């Protein structure tokens, strides 16, 4: 199994991991053999790359930080909450949110030293619900790294999951607009922060600290954000965490008009912005929870061999365990062999092979 960019997919290849749509429905199930129709559909959906079963590489266990069931459940709840708000209801079932958030936290707390090493594969139109769930997961892991207890994690998670709830009130045609927003539209768009806060603060039992995430997740550390141009510690810590998670998730998934970054590239941009747009302390924790090279990434080694990342560790982000499957002359190695780059200092990765 390995990650292959959609441009390089060929008929007859087999999907390695199920691809879900924004409702949590199955777009393409694991094991499905690709036809040209499927490939075109993936392109239409704006999916950049997918996991493919590759006999040359063999089986690789891909262990997401949260189980597929919990993720899908969270997706369902988020969609339900946000579309209900959309129908001019001003309230939602807080218990539903709390339950799903607790499930995620419990699963994450069960693992120590969690590293996100799975590429989030989403359709381009799934920029709200799938995004919300991912931001919640990334925020919780960051919170754990920062030493948060369960109560604090729950508030952070609820705020993160619903940070974009104000977008429910935002005209859909503008959300899907490809061209840059004009000034008026931009004003309207920026209003989603205040709108979200208004919704959340009026819900009893929803923590005010969590509601502030919706209000402040577009503030910037240096005071150049919106809506209030808050600065540094003036922005709530929850919001400072969610801002980093939000930006990272947006950069690593396709958005209309902009190709996605690979995790290591997105992390570089995040690091370059520490102390500028982003809280440097949060960034320091965040960089440790993301695997630079997700499992399934094809890399070129200094020996000229090609390998697939099969295991990552938090302590040695630049030195994953890899399975070497193509030799320096481009011939398949059968059977492939594995190297842990932590213990083999003569080997190093010279680049990521995006083209698959």
């Amino acid at each position, binding site marked *: 199994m390995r990650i292959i960019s959609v441009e390089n997919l060929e008929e007859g290849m087999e999907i390695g991991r199920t691809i879900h749509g924004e409702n949590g429905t199955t777009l393409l199930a694991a094991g499905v053999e690709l036809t040209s129709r499927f490939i075109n559909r993936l392109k239409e959906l704006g999916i950049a790359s997918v996991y493919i079963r590759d006999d040359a590489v063999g089986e690789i266990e891909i262990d997401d930080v949260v189980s597929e069931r919990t993720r899908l459940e969270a997706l369902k709840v988020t969609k339900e909450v946000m579309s209900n708000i959309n129908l001019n209801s001003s309230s939602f079932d807080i218990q539903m949110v709390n339950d799903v958030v607790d499930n995620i936290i419990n699963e994450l707390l069960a693992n120590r030293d969690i590293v996100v090493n799975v590429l989030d594969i989403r359709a381009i139109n799934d920029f709200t619900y799938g995004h919300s769930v991912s931001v919640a997961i990334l925020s919780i892991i960051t919170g754990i790294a920062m030493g948060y207890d369960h109560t604090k994690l729950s508030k952070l998670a609820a705020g993160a999951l619903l940070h974009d709830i104000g977008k429910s009130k935002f005209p859909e045609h503008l959300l899907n607009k490809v061209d840059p927003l004009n000034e008026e539209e931009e004003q309207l768009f920026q209003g989603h922060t205040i709108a979200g806060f208004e919704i959340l603060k009026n819900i009893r039992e929803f923590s005010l600290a969590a509601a502030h995430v919706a209000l402040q997740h577009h503030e910037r550390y240096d005071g150049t954000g919106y809506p209030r141009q808050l600065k540094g510690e003036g922005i709530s810590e929850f919001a400072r965490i969610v801002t980093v998670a939000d930006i990272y998730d947006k950069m690593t998934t396709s958005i209309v008009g902009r190709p996605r970054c690979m995790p*290591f*590239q997105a992390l*570089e*941009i995040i*690091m*370059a912005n*520490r*102390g500028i747009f982003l809280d440097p302390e949060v*960034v*320091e924790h965040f*960089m440790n929870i993301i695997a*630079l090279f997700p499992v399934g990434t094809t890399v*070129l080694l*200094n020996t000229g061999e090609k390998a697939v990342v099969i295991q990552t560790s938090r302590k*040695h*982000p*630049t*030195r994953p365990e890899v399975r070497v499957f193509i030799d320096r002359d481009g011939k398949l190695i059968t059977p492939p062999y594995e190297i842990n780059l932590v213990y083999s200092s003569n080997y*190093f*990765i*010279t*680049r*990521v092979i995006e083209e698959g």
Partner: protein
Amino acid sequence: MFNEFRQTQLLYRVCSLLIKAQQDNDEVFNQIVALLCQELRVTGSSIWIATHQGGIGQQRLAFFQAGEKLSYSLPNLDYQAAALVFEQGNGLVLHNIHNDENFHEAKRNDLWVTAYPLKNKSELIGVFCIWDNCNKRTHQERENFVSLVQKVGSELTNGLYNYKQYSQANHKRIVKELETARRIQFDLMPKELPVLQGISLGVRTIPANEVGGDYLDIFLTNSKHLGIAIGDVMGKGIPAALWMAMTKVAMRTAAKDDTQPHIAVSQVNSVLFPDLSRQGIFVTLLYALYDPYNKTLLFSNAGHLPPLLFRSKTQKVEPLQLKGAYIGGVENKIYQISGVRLQKGDIVLFYTDGLIEALNSAQKQLGVEKVAELLNSNALYDASQIIDRLIVDLGQFTGDYHQTDDITLAVLKVEE
């Protein structure tokens, strides 16, 4: 001017030298042209050999120019004369070459050239050129002279042919030896890094396919300070590898007793200068000495690229500028010293030009600004991880494009 006996004597000496050339000793050809210039009292002489890399080309095997100062470049004229012969396949005897459209550079009207094609059967394998001042000799003398050049030329043809046969047979062996040289050179790079409290260290060399001249050494001095030396020998191949090894030894010797960087670099220059200057080779060398107790980095620089300092506090990258001549450039040069105090989180990147001059397929260089940017955006990792990350960024930039230069980098990060 030159009696029969002396002609024979000269030919004999040329032939005996040529026998040596069969042992793949191309230095012999330099001896031959020098001998001819001295004995015939001519301005210059050269021997060219035909190469077949990608069409017919020419390579100068030997060149000698008598002492007199000229207002033009004889090597350039010589190249043009040989090129004409290679192109046309015929000999060339030109008086007053400044009148010839092929030789604009010659501003004197008294220079004449005899360029003799060295042909084995019908194959042109080389060219033999003699340059002289035509005012020195009578017409008759010149006629004699041409006939002597022909005699020497026919000996050279045989010698060159044998040399060529031999060097082709040797080519395989040379490739193998170059491979060994490359490995030896790689082994000269630091493997085990010194361990020092409070800092992290990382180094990496990506050798080009040819033997390059990058040099890097990291060691602890007697009082447990950290010495980092980085340099680049100009040129490639075995000589570069040899000079790299020499530089390493000279540097280690100079730095042993906690010598201040500028004194150490000056000493390296004094030791290597005579041989380097004779061979016209330069070495860039930067030596930095880090004192972990008060976190100061002292350095001296002999023409190497300035290291980049990332300041954790300001998140800005600045080059550690300090000018100084190449090693081998100026005799008894006294180098300067400079220093900075480092703080927690600060990073110093030492590198060779292969890094910033790395090309992608669009022939764009990575550039020092991009390197500075990458240093900032990877500053939170430790030194060895920063190296790993820079290498991937470099690879992402260059793609599959083949790099012709070694790339060497070393990172020092103050961790506490």
